[in-house]
């Protein structure tokens, strides 16, 4: 589904990603772990198409198409979704209007007719139930005055509504208490299908107790320096990142 080859990216001449190689297939969950400043958020932003970073080389191929040729919105239409580490507040737009717009834009791009309002409302209700979201939430302004946990839950709610093929969860666990973490992880697990894939970006092993990855990659100084199964995350938690960097050297 996703093939990243020798991806190099940076900001203002300062290279952050120094040749990333990664392959993600449908049905898989990949975890990317790494210390602060290793390039985790740059990688997710590069996949989603942020113009903040300059792509200096490499390819991000998604279902055979080079994502680097596409605008962020086109990537979203193809089925790429990024759950933001810091979701943006948009005063003046309600959650329901926002989601309605996203869905209608996506369907327009896919040349599907508009979704019937009743179907949309039904879908919203189902997904809200899945994520333990209370009524009244839909009419609140996008992320305005939301707590950290509410913002993250709102990200997963949008993901549930947009049904992406590839979801990237950037530090979704940060700012969540244990109950919220469980609800969010449970939502992600329930949305898991044979034909979609998830990349979980995290500092800590904690989230991976709830969203169990098939693969774990360690990102360090702009490169994936080690890959393995879920046990790698446990080992990291126990021994710290120093252990791997020493091993590499």
């Amino acid at each position: 589904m996703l093939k990243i080859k020798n991806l190099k990216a940076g900001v203002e001449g300062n290279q952050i990603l120094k040749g990333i190689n990664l392959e993600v297939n449908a049905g898989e969950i990949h975890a990317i772990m790494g210390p602060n400043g290793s390039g985790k958020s740059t990688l997710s932003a590069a996949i989603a198409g942020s113009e903040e970073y300059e792509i200096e080389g490499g390819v991000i191929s998604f279902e055979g198409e080079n994502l680097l040729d596409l605008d962020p919105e086109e990537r979203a239409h193809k089925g790429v979704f990024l759950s933001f580490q810091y979701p943006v507040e948009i005063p003046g737009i309600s959650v329901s209007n926002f989601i309605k717009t996203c869905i209608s834009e996506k369907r327009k791009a896919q040349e599907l007719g508009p979704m019937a309002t009743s179907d949309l409302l039904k879908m919203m209700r189902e997904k809200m139930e899945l994520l333990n979201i209370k009524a009244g939430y839909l009419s609140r302004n996008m992320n305005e005055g939301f707590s950290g946990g509410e913002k993250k839950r709102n990200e997963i709610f949008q993901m549930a509504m947009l049904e992406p093929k590839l979801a990237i969860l950037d530090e979704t666990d940060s700012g969540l208490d244990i109950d919220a973490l469980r609800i969010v992880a449970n939502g992600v697990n329930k949305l898991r299908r044979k034909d979609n894939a998830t990349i979980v970006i995290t500092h800590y092993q904690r989230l991976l107790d709830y969203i169990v990855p098939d693969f774990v990659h360690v990102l360090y100084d702009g490169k994936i320096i080690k890959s393995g199964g879920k046990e790698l995350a446990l080992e990291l938690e126990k021994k710290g990142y120093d252990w791997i960097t020493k091993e590499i050297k």
Partner: protein
Amino acid sequence: MSLIKSIKSYSEGIQMSEEKKQLLDSFFLTGFPTTKDEDWKYTSLKKIISNDYVIENESDTKNYSVVEKYSLKFKYRIIFFDGKMLHFPQIKGVSITGFSEFESNNTNSILQLNKALSKNGFTIAVDKNIKVESPIEILFFSTSKNSFLQYRNQISIGKNSEVKFVERIQSLNNSISLVNHFTQINCAENTKVEYNKIQNNSSQSQLIDSTNIYQKKDSICDINTLIFGGSFTRNNLNFEQNGNNCESNMNGVSVLNKHQLGDNHTFVDHKNPNCRSNEMYKGVYLDYSKGVFNGKIMVRPNAQKIDAFQSNNNLLLSDDSSIDSKPQLEIYADDVKCSHGCTIGQLDEDALFYMRSRGVGIEEAKAILTYAFASEAIENISVEKVKELARRLMAEKLNVDLNFS
């Protein structure tokens, strides 16, 4: 021929009272304001008054079916064509008649001209204890080429009464035109008034609109101003609070492009204690457009416990657009709460990327964020049809399909 010369030759051909002659002479003496006048520092009339106009011309070719295109189809409608009131509704407890003479505070030459030569307008008197259930829509159409028209309107609201208005001035002739519009609103005790101004005129039309509001105790008056169309729009809103516990609210949304100019000058004269005023003006400027905001708040020495709030937020969406924004607070009482704020900015890049990453195209994303920016002021309007229109006009202007409910 310049406008002043046209006015001169027009006035020589008509009969006038001595008082009006004096007013007109005083107007000729000072002329139209220039950028040397403090109140017109940022807005020049020079080009506007150098154009050729036909003064108070009456045209016979009238296509009344056009009304529906511009009307919000309220139950009660007052319709003017080229200055003549052609239709007015019958409302219980409300008297609606045509133009009438009334005294006004003619502090500037534009109002002197209006008082001296106006012969068109409406007079509305609402009895006491009347709640008019549907808004009164007032439509002013002009059909003739290069018209210079003046309207002079008076509204008096009786004690404990409640009424809403929706006003639209529309030129049906796509030539350069100018309207000098004046409305005086007298709010008696415990009244509630909302006046909505939809300023979406044709691309070459120009408007100088002055509204003087006199409030008695316990009255609430809201004026909402939506500037979308016209090449030149200047609004002067003057509130005078003549009693305790008055509330004056102003909301404004300007969405301008090309070479449009939109100028909102407001003045709240807090003359009595325990009163409030709220101003929220939002401006969105594209292309070469220009905005002006000047908000004057006067708190007189005995006007204690005043709560005055003023905000003017602007989005400049092009390199060539501009805004001049000036709060002007004169406070002579010591126990008051006055706050004012002005922001000028561009769209938030993070929010744009956030929306794009969810599949919203860049133009739509910009439009939605712009809409979100202005919506706070639109939400303060209580008339649903006006709100809908504002949303629609904004979407049209930003060239997107905003399907919000």
